[in-house]
């Protein structure tokens, strides 16, 4: 659980990785490493590194076709992140409930 969330946050913390992931989601089809490298004006090596991090987080999966590696987006794990954000959101709801009670009870 901890490990998964850590990997997810690590994966989406980097702007370039977010862009690559976004490009894959928008493409809604598999893109090869070569294609991504060309789209992002990056070396294959650079792309491969980012892809590995995204793959570790479960955000993409890879199919090998011949010598080329094709990447597909899988946004499902992002629900974990959303759940986490919701915890933060609930935190503020609870605090504002407290504030409401506090303001209601003040005798000034």
């Amino acid at each position, binding site marked *: 659980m*901890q490990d998964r*969330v*850590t990997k997810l*946050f*690590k994966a*989406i*913390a980097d702007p370039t990785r*977010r862009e690559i992931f976004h490009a894959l989601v928008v493409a809604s089809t598999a893109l090869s490493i070569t294609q991504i490298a060309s789209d992002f004006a990056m070396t294959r090596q650079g792309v491969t590194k980012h892809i590995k991090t995204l793959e570790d987080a479960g955000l993409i999966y890879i199919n090998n076709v011949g010598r080329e590696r094709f990447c597909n987006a899988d946004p499902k794990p992002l629900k974990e*992140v*959303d759940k*986490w*954000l919701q*915890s*933060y*959101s*609930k*935190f*503020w*709801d*609870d*605090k*504002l409930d*407290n*504030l*409401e*009670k*506090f*303001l209601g*009870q*003040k005798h*000034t």
Partner: protein
Amino acid sequence: MKDVITKERTFNRSIQAVWNAISKAEELSAWFIDADFKAEKGYNYRFTSSGEENCTAIVGEILEADPYTLSYTWIVEGTKAVTTVTWRLESEGENTKLYLEHSGISNYEGETAVTMFNNFNGGWDNCMSELNTYLKKEAHAG
């Protein structure tokens, strides 16, 4: 990626009463968390909890404190991720409207995220028990 949490509340209180509640250390400590806090630009505040162990402190700097906007950085102590909390009040007839914005949430990453995640899954309830204690005291006093 959603990066901002926003909240709105309307209180049947004067704008000054709500402003005091969110900007004065004594009042913050009653409903929010033990606060070493001054609503002065540049002040380094500290939110802690009294008595409870293993509660991570929140620290930060006041960015803006002009009635009725209060803004400060929100940093989980010991981590590098900087987020920002902004409170804004508006008079609406006899009521006061409160807008709360917590931005930069995606700046949390890796370990910080996990620490925070765990904190919010139970830990903070203990850390935030001051209000309950306070309300009980008030109820008995009344």
